């Protein structure tokens, strides 16, 4: 019975489908000409590079004595992670409706493949830039790589959960799409990319720490700068926030899958 397929078999099919969608997405978006799939991380890399250059020359968001390049690279890479994941999942279903005729392709797979691709792009971009800047002496080697890794993993999880929620909501109403863009715009300066929480007045600290990604960015920077910064984050809060958002996201995606209408 297809609807009584074992969990292991279902998982195997899902991996196969997501793999196929990933390849399709890569070839469609980047093609085989010039840089091809390298654009996957060259594009976010250029973004981060430009922002780093801008911040360095204008001294923007930099009232303290932290090295600006490292500050910009860690901050902007985090923004790219959650923002690109969510943006790619906005209205992800309509252009792919035809694929649903291939029964093993489910709405969730469309989201997962896009999320994985964005996480991969942002991660490679971050690692390549950090390695490059460190090799040229523009960035110090990180104080605690494992701490950074935890921060990045949490940011990735947050990005995936956010993308599921935002993506599924746009399947209900176009209003969600229109709202998401201004919201993501507002979230950028509040997301922790432009400041260390410690720099803020304490009543404002409480407010920004409601945003889960602020905790992730603090973890990431805490790992990178080590004792040079005082960080404010709560792993327990971040964990629960990501978990709750993931569950809400999965429930919304499941419901969107039930309601989907194929031309």
């Amino acid at each position, binding site marked *: *019975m*297809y*609807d009584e397929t074992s969990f292991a078999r279902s998982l195997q*099919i899902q991996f*196969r*489908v997501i*793999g*196929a969608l990933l*390849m*399709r997405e890569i*070839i*469609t978006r980047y093609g085989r000409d010039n840089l091809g799939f390298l654009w996957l991380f060259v594009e976010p890399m250029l973004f981060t590079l430009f922002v780093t250059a801008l911040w360095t020359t204008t001294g923007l968001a930099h009232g303290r004595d932290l090295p600006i390049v490292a500050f910009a690279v860690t901050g902007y890479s985090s923004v790219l992670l959650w923002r690109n994941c969510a943006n790619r999942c906005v209205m992800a279903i309509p252009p792919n*409706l*035809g*694929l*649903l*005729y*291939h*029964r*093993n*392709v489910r709405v969730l797979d469309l989201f997962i493949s896009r999320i994985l691709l964005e996480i991969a792009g942002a991660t490679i971009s971050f690692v390549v830039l950090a390695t490059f800047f460190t090799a040229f002496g523009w960035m110090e080697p990180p104080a605690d790589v494992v701490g950074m890794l935890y921060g990045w993993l949490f940011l990735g999880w947050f990005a995936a959960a956010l993308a599921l929620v935002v993506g599924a909501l746009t399947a209900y109403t176009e209003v969600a799409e229109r709202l998401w863009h201004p919201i993501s715009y507002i979230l950028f300066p509040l997301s922790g990319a432009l400041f260390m929480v410690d720099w803020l007045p304490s009543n404002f600290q409480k407010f920004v720490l409601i945003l889960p990604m602020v905790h992730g960015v603090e973890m990431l920077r805490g790992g990178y700068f080590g004792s040079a910064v005082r960080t404010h984050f709560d792993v327990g809060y971040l964990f629960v926030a990501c978990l709750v958002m993931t569950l809400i996201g999965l429930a919304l995606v499941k419901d969107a*899958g*039930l*309601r*989907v*209408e*194929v*031309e």
Partner: protein
Amino acid sequence: MIRLENVTKIYHTRQGSHTVLDGVDLQVGKGVKVGIMGRNGSGKSTLIRLISGAELPTSGRVRRTISVSWPLAFGGAFQAYLTGLDNVRFICRIYGVSYANVVRFVEEFSELGSYLREPVRHYSGGMRARLAFALSMAIEFDCFLIDEVIVVGDSRFHEKCRIELFEKRKDRALILVSHDVNTIKAHCECASVLHDGKLHSFEHVDDAYAFYQTSLH
């Protein structure tokens, strides 16, 4: 066996909810050829989408113990910016079948030649249909879904499709949706009629057609 158990499908439209299928039961065993008749808008295509799994029922169950195709010659899943071959490769990955064999078959059957290496958006409607039909035949299924028999290509190509589907695969099950009784008579041994959301099944196509005729008035 494909089995629909008390399947209901409700769409939410601007005018409120609209029940397209209302407690539909259907069984299609291995090798059985079933025709589905119904007026325009009676829910024939909805039924096909539920059987194929593209959409899920509002309530009830669709069970499948045999493999079921996507609607025959459906080209809506093509990514227009990818080449024909890249699209073929994607379908192979989805179904976990060997790419080499499928490509060989598609190249030979579709007669698209070097066009297979061009983006699908450069194809004419007929070329797309040929690629879609070839792909439908390149991956093996126990049951084929056909939402209206469409004429693919010129009469020679059409004949080739007929042989490939109705002769070489005559042991397979078939669910054929059409409002043309002659098409159904030619290919099916039994038929069902969709009317007011209910599916009425008949052992003989003629009985189904008689019911269909009275339901029109």
